[in-house]
């Protein structure tokens, strides 16, 4: 291992990156298994602590029920078994990757979840990607023009976007762009019954995604702009920045090539956290724009006490959080090699 001084002045230790990364992944996976197991157990009992059970919710939606019907339904759902037996059956099924049947959706849980997964992934990934790019550009610009009108304008804009409720932004965008200008649809994932395929279908989905992605993205944009700006300002007086300037590098090179990679670290951590909310974080957006995603499904499952669906979503959410954080750690370590991912 050789110590070298980088342009930025930080000490980097060149490592055998690939085997090291594999070891880290293996270690983290080993840690993840007990974490997921704990979450699995806690979730199982936690959802049962909520007042009312799936039968109560079922009859609430059915608007009626008599005792015999409820008794039959409870038996059908296995809720008449002792809770430890229910837990044992649940564990056995999970081990066999059987998420059970959703009585509230009259379909297998996995089928229900998979039908709603893709729209949420698409919406969140596109929103985060666009807002990340926008946030970096605005954050760097604000830092470069610190305390000028540009900086203040960006700061005010990001404050406003951060403070405005998403449902309000969403409905406002609908009124302007869908109702008044009729440029984009009010909501939905695609044009129902259009029969479009290939590129035409992709463009149709993109057209439907403009407003929900903008609404969700504007919030993220505010977050990333403020984070990048703050991180950049912290680095302004760093030794490596002074060194870079002393070497006669252009301001753009100093900002984008030397400062930005370091400023991105907290942003990446935030992205990791937000990816964790992939499965449930877009509830408001999905509701306002009738986006058929997992956020709405999670909310409905909680309201309807759909234990099987709720537990499956929570389990998936846990797996996504663990995985996302591992990826963020690895990427952070790749950007800043001083970091010890272990």
């Amino acid at each position, binding site marked *: 291992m050789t110590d070298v001084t980088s342009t930025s002045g930080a000490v980097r230790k060149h490592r055998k990156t690939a085997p090291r990364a594999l070891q880290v992944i293996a270690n983290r996976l080993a840690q993840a298994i007990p974490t997921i197991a704990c979450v699995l157990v806690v979730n199982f009992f936690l959802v049962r602590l909520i007042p009312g059970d799936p039968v109560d919710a079922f009859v609430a939606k059915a*608007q009626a029920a008599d005792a015999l019907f409820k008794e039959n339904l409870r038996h059908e759902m296995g809720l008449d078994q002792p809770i430890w037996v229910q837990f044992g059956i649940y564990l056995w099924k999970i081990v066999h990757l059987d998420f059970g049947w959703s009585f509230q959706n009259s379909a297998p849980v996995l089928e229900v979840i998979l039908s709603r997964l893709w729209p949420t992934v698409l919406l969140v990934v596109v929103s985060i990607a666009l807002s990340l790019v926008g946030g970096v550009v605005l954050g760097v610009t604000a830092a470069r023009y610190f305390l000028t009108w540009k900086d203040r304008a960006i700061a005010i804009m990001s404050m406003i976007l951060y403070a405005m409720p998403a449902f309000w932004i969403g409905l406002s965008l609908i009124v302007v762009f869908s109702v008044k200008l009729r440029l984009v649809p009010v909501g939905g*994932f695609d044009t129902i019954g259009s029969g479009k395929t290939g590129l035409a279908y992709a463009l149709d989905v993109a057209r439907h995604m403009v407003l929900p992605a903008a609404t969700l993205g504007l919030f993220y944009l505010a977050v990333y702009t403020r984070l990048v700006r703050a991180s950049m300002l912290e680095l302004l007086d760093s030794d490596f920045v002074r060194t870079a300037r002393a070497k006669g590098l252009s301001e753009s090179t100093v900002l984008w090539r030397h400062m930005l990679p370091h400023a991105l670290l907290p942003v990446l951590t935030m992205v990791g956290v937000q990816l964790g909310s992939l499965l449930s974080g877009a509830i408001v957006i999905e509701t306002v724009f009738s986006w058929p995603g997992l956020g709405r499904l999670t909310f409905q499952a909680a309201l309807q006490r759909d234990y099987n669906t709720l537990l499956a979503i929570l389990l998936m959410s846990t797996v996504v959080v663990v995985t996302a954080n591992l990826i963020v750690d690895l990427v952070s370590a790749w950007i800043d090699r001083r970091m010890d991912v272990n």
Partner: protein
Amino acid sequence: MITRRTVLAIGGLSMLPWVGKLAAQETKKPAPGGVLRVAVYDDPRSIFSPIETGDLELTIGSKIFESLLRLKADNTFEGVLAESWKYSPDGKEYEFKLRDNTRFHDGQPLTSEDIAFSIMELGKKHNAFGSTLFANVIAADLPDARTVVFKLSKPMPPFPFLGTLAAFAPIAPKHIYGTSDILKNPKNNTPIGTGPFRFKEWNRGSSIVLDRNPDYREKSEPYLDQVVFRIITDPGARAAAFEADEVDAGVNSPVSKADLKRLAELPFIAIDASGNKATEGVNAIEVNLRRKELSDVRVRRAISMSIDRNFICKAVYEGMAAPAHGPIRSDSFLFDAELPQLAFNIEEANKLLDEAGYPKGADGWRFNLNIDPNGDDLNVIGDYIKQALAGIGINGTIIVSDYATHNARIYTDYDFDLSVQVISTLVDPQISVFDYYWSKAISKGRWQTNATDYRNEEMDKAIEDAESAIEADQRLAALKQFQKIAARDLPLIPLVEYESHNVFNKRVQLGSLGPVWPLQTWADAWLEK
């Protein structure tokens, strides 16, 4: 044959003048073709409506599955799958003769066996209402493939029995659903019925698409090529979809009252207030008589007198409601017009509470009560009731919970003082109102029933008389008695009769408009080009 009436009465029963003015439709010749886009608020639990009782499931399912009968606006019945029907003088036998040209979507003919299966198996055993609705139906005789005779254990008047069959008994094919676990039958979500529309696809969270059934019994129907139920969960977004012309129809109050007024101003929007008349109800307070203070009728009357029902109509419903007199709506033909108005009199209410032995304490309160509103508008009403009770020295505490929790609190745990609830009429009070008052309906864990612990032999007799009176006059007399006792004893304190609206683009022509329009097949609905 199914007759069609021109729709002229839209909005005629509305409480607001602008509704009628905007919604009137003219006689026009139906034009075939087009896609009817209907906004709905959620995914249904399933589309297999023969075992469902939710409004959403029944609205969608009723285009695929037909019933024996249909309820008309004049409270008479019209045959759908049934060609004719008759009942015995003692009200214990009902015979239906089926049309001979009805086929399921898979080409199999409809037979009396399908009717018997749908009622005796699906209805009685798997429908949430079933064992109550069809409790008296003990057998179905099948003299031939086109005739079914239902045998009842005790007399049942024609209107509630036929009404039950019209609204809550869609007919499904025995050869498809009689062969496996009913709840998990894969055909539940790709259903096969006899209706004018066939199931095409269900994109969860997005839409349900139904195609025209080209082999429908009525050769010229349905007029529409497709019905698309578009799932739009946010009421504001639904209103925007109407404005942007992205949906054509929405049923059962699809938008908020503020948006409804705004939409009514648009030249291309029509609003109907008559198509839900048979399923609207009364908002009321269920009073837990297990609580000592509330077991005194003077206290219940005082609470009733503290409430300004006109204020609720104006402030909560923006005029789209009327003060309630009792458990049956005043626009029902079963309403007792002699019932007195429920008074709003704070002074008298305070006096009654003093008489009952509950004077105001040093802190100004007589006693505390919990108020459990059951969501949506009822939460706002709950807030008002808290204020109203403060005016007579009762300290109210609002307990807000979601539907499942609320139901468990009220109907399983009886852990409530005042529950603000919707008492839906559902075609006839025998189907859904009597059980709130009948002492024999007290059953822990059973929803929409007597949770108040009200027990009165006089009331039980009135209910039982109404349940078995075959002659209309006798039944009406028993119903009047029921309403008088209910208004006197107030185990439930009636609040307001709310109005439910259907919203349309004016190009939508509704066809025959009954008082349960959302549950009609829409075979004769069409779109003006």
